[in-house]
């Protein structure tokens, strides 16, 4: 450092440490919720967690790997469908729900082999075709009774109170677990790799990022996550109707949550999920106008606030709640404080304090 100004790369800011502690405290409270809160609050929170799973999964696909899918309802429906199958063949309820999601996740591997070769718009509609086909094939299964659907009868054997608590805990564990996985992946090499792919696939490939492997990891994760959301939804609603589970509205919800919260940010989809949950609670009764509003909001956000509410807040104030990226902090001494490594070649265009990982593609790394 020849000048007396430089940058340190930091991951943990004071705010992100404080908020991480707060997140852990919140989790403890949430874990005890079925013992503390009224039944309708517990049910609402379960629904919220399922929305958050969907939102975070869709963001991992579109915001990080650049894969805009309008067919994630394929996995939502298949997760629930396989859970019914497992339950029908005698596996007890909650393991069946989990296994259903695992089975749908495994099925996504052969699907990925075809779909990931398509680019942007073709991938989007290709996934939609997959969802339609899954819907039609599931409805052919005599077990499902066509569009009439079927109930997961084994769920009725559990008392409503117990069922509520189990659903809640399973949804909570699923949400926290999936968030943790996404968090870990995005902090690691894969996070840098897939963002490089999203920003410029050919350039990423040329510097040695294994494009297909990176996309596939995210695709499988998102398929499993959406399938788990579907089987959890089955756990709360008991009935399975193909039209509902394979409906395009799930994609509309996911796009809305992610766009409003902040595409390509870690915290954004969580914020978007909470907002969607509140909007549904307030306006869900208005039916069709509510859907028109969701679509219109998605357009407005995509055009005018492409980084969503969270991305905008983050950009303006330079705050980071969770340490998922790196920040560059400017300092004014000859040596970096605390022995921290100085950024090797700070880009002059990067403003101090602004997260480096979303506004600019990080240096692509080879995937391990």
């Amino acid at each position, binding site marked *: 450092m020849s000048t007396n100004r430089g940058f340190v790369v930091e991951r943990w800011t004071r705010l992100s440490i404080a908020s991480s502690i707060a997140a852990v405290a919140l989790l403890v409270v949430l874990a005890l919720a079925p013992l503390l809160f009224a039944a309708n609050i517990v049910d609402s929170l379960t629904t919220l967690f399922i929305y958050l799973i969907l939102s975070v999964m869709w963001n991992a696909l*579109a915001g990080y790997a*650049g894969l*805009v899918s*309008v067919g994630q309802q394929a996995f939502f429906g298949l997760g629930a469908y396989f859970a019914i199958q497992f339950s029908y063949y005698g596996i007890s309820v909650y393991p069946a729900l989990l296994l259903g999601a695992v089975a749908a996740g495994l099925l996504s591997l052969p699907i990925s082999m*075809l779909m990931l*070769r*398509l680019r*942007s*718009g*073709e991938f*989007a*509609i*290709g996934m*939609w*075709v*997959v969802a*339609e*086909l899954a819907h*039609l*094939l599931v*409805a*052919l299964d005599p077990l499902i009774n066509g569009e009439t659907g079927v109930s997961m009868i084994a769920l009725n054997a559990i008392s409503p109170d117990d069922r509520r608590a189990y659903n809640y805990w399973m949804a909570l564990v699923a949400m926290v677990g999936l968030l943790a996985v996404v968090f870990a992946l995005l902090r690691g090499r894969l996070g840098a790799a897939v963002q490089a792919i999203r920003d410029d696939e050919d350039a990423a490939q040329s510097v040695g990022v294994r494009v297909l492997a990176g996309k596939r990891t995210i695709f499988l994760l998102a398929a499993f996550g959406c399938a788990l959301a579907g089987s959890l939804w089955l756990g709360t609603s008991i009935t399975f109707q193909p039209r509902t589970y394979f409906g*395009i509205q799930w*994609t*509309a919800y996911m*796009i809305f949550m992610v*766009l409003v919260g902040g595409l390509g940010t870690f915290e954004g989809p969580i914020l978007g999920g909470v907002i969607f949950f509140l909007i549904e609670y307030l306006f869900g009764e208005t039916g*069709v*106008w509510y*859907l*028109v509003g*969701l*679509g*219109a*909001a*998605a*357009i407005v956000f*995509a*055009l005018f606030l*492409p980084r969503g509410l969270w991305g905008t807040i983050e950009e303006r104030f330079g705050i980071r709640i969770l340490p998922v990226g790196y920040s560059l902090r400017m300092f004014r001494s000859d040596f970096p404080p605390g022995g921290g490594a100085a950024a090797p070649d700070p880009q002059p265009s990067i403003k101090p304090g602004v997260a480096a990982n979303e506004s600019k593609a990080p240096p692509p790394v080879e995937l391990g």
Partner: protein
Amino acid sequence: MIWVTQLLNGVLLGGYYALLACGLSFMFGVMRIINLAHGDFAILSACLVFLIANTTDISPFIALVVVLPLMALIGWGLQRWMLERSLRAGMLVPLLTTFGLAIVIENGLFEYFGADTRSLAPYIGDFAYDSWAITGNVYIGYLAALIFALAVVLLGGLKLFLTYTSLGRAIRATAEDSDTAALVGINARAVYGIAAAIAVATAGLAGVFLAMRAVFTPYSGPEQLIFAFEAVVIGGIGSLSGTLVGGIVLGVAQTFGAQINPQGFLITGHVVFLVVLAGRLALTGLRGRGGIQGLLARQP
């Protein structure tokens, strides 16, 4: 004999798919945008014609004279106010905005027209079901034949337009490289506006014929988008003559599928689409997707 009839029906249905897919293919070729609201524009146009036919005595064919320019205008506005901004924000944003638009159109139509299944067939009289008898029990419907002929004329006309007119050359130049086209004095903004107008107007035309030969609801749009997309991909993306072939393959697959099983109509169509896709990727990898620039940009 039933198979001959089905084959014929499938080919004629393919004409409808080609008509439907033409605008989708064209817009993708010129602007690299897959318009996820394509099917909903078709249904919007059908609803408008239905509104005119239902409230006045005007024939749907004459109503088209009013509705098609309106659809073209909508397409132009779509480009000016939505797609242009979306395109600047990256490759993924047009998908998000057109998906949002699809949700708005579908549900807006539902709010206005309700969930009823409708058809324009009652408004075109005998034409909806009259047919030529080819042999004792093989018939060709007037309407199906008209749609097929229209698809051929439209696709052929579009190709001639792109090849031989100066506006067509400007469109191809812009599709190839809009920056360079701008350097030689082509107004890329106007070209995109015209391309979007053509695409949405042809979608509207297809929607009206859908409404004449079958039934529709406000939520029929997504299915039409998927059919159009399948026809485009089967025929080779961006290739206008390929679109006709793709439509026919899809139509024949669907009618044969329906002959095997009542549910088979949709399933067979989707399966054929996926098989063609897998086959093409296996044979040629990513580079073989050529068609995009193919007929639009390359000198034929």
